[in-house]
C-alpha cells in the first residue's frame, strides 16, 4: 500500500489504479489538508472519501518493587511462579492491600498528562474466565478512575525531510489503576496451556485515549511521546519489547458527515513501528471491505507481524459481558492536596497531589524547548536527541568539551554518529566512539589542524574502536592540514600552470571554475589543504 504522506490530514481517498494485466487494484492514499476542510474532490476518483478514526487503549506496567495489591516482587523473566504470593494465586482468605508507590505513579502520570485527579476514586471487579486470571475477575477502576480529562501533545513531521513539524493533541479520557493478569503459554501439540502467575497482580496504568487520531503515523507518534513521558517520570519503564507498554488500537472508518462506522479492536502489537503498520493496514482493510459491499464486524483482531496484516483472533466468541461490580474489599482511594490535607494525618497514609506536582521532572516537551534555546539547534534536532536513549547526554558532553559551536556539533552527532549507530544497530551507550573522543576530534577540526574530509576519515578509523586517539590517527595517516603557506602557494601555482583553459575562463569572469582548481589542489595535497585558504591563494594569484 502506498504510504500516506507524513502527517495525514485525516481524509483518505482510494484511487484505483487500473494496471495493464489486470493486477488487483492497489489502494493509493492521497491526502487532504484537514478533515474539516474540503476533502479530496469526489469527482477526481469517483469515490467518496473516507475518514479513519483511531483510538488507543494503552496499558503501562508501573515501575515498582512490589505488586499493586500484594507484596510479591515485580520481576521480569523470573523463574515460573516464583514471584507469586497467595493473593496473586487467588487462594481463599487473601485480601488486596494497595501499594502506595502505584498510586503515586498514577498521580504523576495523570498530572503530566494534564488530567484532573479524582481525590476520591473507586475500585471494581471485571469478571471473565481465563486460566491466567485465577480469581476469575480483574480489579480495575471502571466507575470512578484516578484521573480523567487530560491531553497529550505530540509532533509529526509533515515531509520526509523532517524540516516541518506540526503539533497535534489527543484527549486522554481517563487513567485507571488495574491488575495485570498472568501469562499463558499455549502448547498446541499437547492441547494444553501452561500458566505462569509471575505477572499476575502487577500494577498497570490504563491510559484511555479518545479517538482523535486518524492514521498509523499519528498513533505511533502519540505512543512514542507517551513512552518518553512515562520514562521521564519513572512511573513506567515502558519498554514495549518486555511487555511493559501494551497498545490496543480501535479502528473504524466513515464518510465525512456520517456517523462513526463499526470499529474493530486490534491487539498483539509489539512495537511502535508495528502499531503504525497495524493501524494503517486495518484502515485499508475496512475501506476495501466496505467498498466491496461488505460490512465491518465489531470484532477483535490480532496483528500478524510476519504477514503484515490483521487476522481475526481466536478465543473471542461473542461479546463479552464483564458484569462489573464494586470491589467490596477496597474502600475508596482518597488523595489530598495541601488545602484538603487534615492536620494530624500519618504521612505514610497521605498521597499529596500538590507535593507530587511540585516534584515532577521536566517533561520531554520542556526538555526539547530548553535544548533549542540553550544550544540554538532546530526543533527537529531536539526531537531526534530525545528519541535516542542517551543521545542528549552525549551531545551535551561533546559541547562541553569542545570549542565548536553546538549548531555545528549537532550535525556531527545526527549525521555521522547516529547514522553509524543505526547502521550497526548499536545504542548510544554501546558506541565505540565516546563523547570525549568525538570532542577531541572536533577540536582538531575547529583549530583547523585538519579538514572536515580528513575528520570524517579519522572517524571511520575511530569506529574500529582500537583505542587510538584522534591525534594519533591523524599523525599515522598524515592527515594534518598543510600549515606551510609557501608550500601551499607552490602547489597552487603548479596547478595554475597546468590548467591553461580553466585559468583563461576564470580571468574572463567565470569564477565558478575556481572550484575545479581548488579540487585539483586538494587532490595533489591528498586532502590536506584548507579549501578556504586555497581559494584565497588562487584568487590572489589569478584575480589581482
Amino acid at each position, binding site marked *: 500500500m502506498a504510504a500516506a504522506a507524513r502527517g495525514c490530514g485525516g481524509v483518505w481517498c482510494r484511487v484505483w489504479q487500473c494496471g495493464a494485466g489486470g493486477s488487483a487494484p492497489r489502494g493509493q492514499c492521497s491526502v487532504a489538508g484537514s478533515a474539516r476542510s474540503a476533502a479530496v474532490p469526489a469527482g477526481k476518483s469517483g469515490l467518496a472519501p473516507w475518514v479513519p478514526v483511531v483510538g488507543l487503549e494503552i496499558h503501562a506496567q508501573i515501575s515498582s*518493587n512490589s505488586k499493586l495489591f500484594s507484596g510479591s516482587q515485580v520481576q521480569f523473566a523470573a523463574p515460573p511462579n516464583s514471584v507469586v504470593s497467595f493473593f496473586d494465586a487467588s487462594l481463599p482468605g487473601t485480601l488486596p492491600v494497595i501499594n502506595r508507590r502505584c498510586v503515586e505513579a498514577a498521580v504523576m502520570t495523570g498530572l503530566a498528562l494534564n488530567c484532573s485527579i479524582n481525590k476520591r476514586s473507586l475500585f471494581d471487579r471485571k469478571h471473565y474466565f481465563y486460566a491466567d486470571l485465577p480469581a476469575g475477575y480483574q480489579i480495575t477502576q471502571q466507575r470512578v478512575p484516578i484521573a480523567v480529562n487530560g491531553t497529550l501533545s505530540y509532533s509529526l513531521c509533515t515531509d520526509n525531510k523532517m524540516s516541518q513539524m506540526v503539533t497535534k493533541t489527543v484527549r486522554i479520557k481517563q487513567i485507571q489503576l488495574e491488575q495485570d493478569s498472568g501469562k499463558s503459554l499455549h502448547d498446541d501439540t499437547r492441547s*494444553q496451556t501452561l500458566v505462569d502467575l509471575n505477572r499476575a497482580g502487577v500494577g498497570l496504568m490504563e491510559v484511555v485515549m479518545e479517538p482523535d487520531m486518524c492514521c498509523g503515523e499519528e498513533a505511533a507518534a502519540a505512543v512514542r511521546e507517551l513512552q518518553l513521558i512515562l520514562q521521564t517520570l519513572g512511573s513506567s519503564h515502558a519498554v514495549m519489547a518486555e511487555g511493559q507498554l501494551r497498545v490496543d488500537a480501535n479502528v473504524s472508518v466513515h464518510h465525512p458527515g456520517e456517523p462513526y462506522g463499526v470499529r474493530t479492536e486490534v491487539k498483539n502489537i509489539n512495537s511502535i513501528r508495528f502499531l503504525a503498520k497495524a493501524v494503517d493496514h486495518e484502515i485499508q482493510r475496512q475501506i476495501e471491505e466496505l467498498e466491496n459491499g461488505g460490512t465491518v464486524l465489531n470484532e477483535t483482531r490480532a496483528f500478524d507481524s510476519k504477514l503484515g496484516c490483521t487476522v481475526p483472533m481466536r478465543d473471542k466468541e461473542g461479546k463479552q459481558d464483564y458484569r462489573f461490580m464494586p470491589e467490596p474489599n477496597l*474502600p475508596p482511594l482518597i488523595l489530598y492536596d495541601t488545602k484538603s490535607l487534615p492536620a494530624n494525618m500519618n504521612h505514610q497514609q497521605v498521597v499529596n497531589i500538590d507535593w507530587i506536582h511540585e516534584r515532577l521532572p521536566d517533561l520531554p516537551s520542556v526538555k526539547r524547548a530548553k535544548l533549542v534555546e540553550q544550544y540554538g539547534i532546530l526543533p527537529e534536532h531536539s526531537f531526534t536527541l530525545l528519541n535516542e536513549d542517551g543521545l542528549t547526554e552525549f551531545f551535551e558532553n561533546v559541547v562541553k568539551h569542545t570549542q565548536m559551536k553546538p549548531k555545528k556539533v549537532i550535525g556531527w552527532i545526527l549525521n555521522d554518529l547516529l547514522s553509524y549507530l543505526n547502521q550497526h544497530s548499536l545504542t548510544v551507550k554501546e558506541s565505540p566512539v565516546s563523547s570525549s573522543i568525538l570532542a577531541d576530534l572536533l577540536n582538531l577540526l575547529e583549530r583547523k589542524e585538519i579538514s572536515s574530509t580528513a575528520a570524517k576519515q579519522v572517524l571511520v578509523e575511530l569506529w574500529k574502536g582500537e583505542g587510538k586517539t584522534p591525534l594519533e590517527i591523524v599523525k599515522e595517516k598524515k592527515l594534518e592540514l598543510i600549515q606551510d603557506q609557501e608550500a601551499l602557494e607552490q602547489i597552487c601555482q603548479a596547478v595554475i600552470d597546468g590548467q591553461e583553459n580553466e585559468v583563461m575562463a576564470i580571468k574572463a569572469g567565470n569564477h565558478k571554475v575556481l572550484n575545479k582548481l581548488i579540487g585539483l589542489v586538494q587532490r595533489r595535497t591528498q586532502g590536506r589543504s584548507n579549501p578556504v585558504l586555497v581559494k584565497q591563494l588562487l584568487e590572489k594569484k589569478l584575480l589581482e
Partner: protein
Amino acid sequence: MRVLSVSRWLRGAVRAPSGGPGSPQVPQPGRREREVTVDVLDHLEHLALVDFRDSEGVERLQKAIQFADQLHEVNTDGVEPMDSVLEDRCLYLREDDVTEGNCTKELLKNAKEKVEEYFVAPPGNIPLPKLEE
C-alpha cells in the same frame, strides 16, 4: 434505607431477550411471574460457567430471582446506591516493599497437573454445550 445495586444486574439479565443483559429498567408493579427463556439461560451459563442442569435447577433460579425482586418494593428515589459498608473508611496504603513470594513449591502443591513449575490448564475456555429445550 439503601439498596445493593447487584440485584439490578440480576433483574436486568432475566428478561425477555429484547432488552439485552445489563440494561436495568424499573419493572412494572404486579409483574412478578417472569419467564427464564432458553436464550437467557444459555447466556447466563456461558458467562458464569455454571450448568443449571435440569428443570429443577432452572426452577430454583427462578425462585431466587423472585425472592431478590422483593427489594424493589422499596422506594429508592433520590437515594445514592451504597456499594460498600467501608464507604467512610480510607483505603490503607502499603509501602512498596517486597514481603512475599518465593513459594513456588507450596503454590504448586494443590495443582492437579504441572509441567516444570507451570500450572497446566486446558487450552482456552471450554464452553458448555448449548441447551436443547
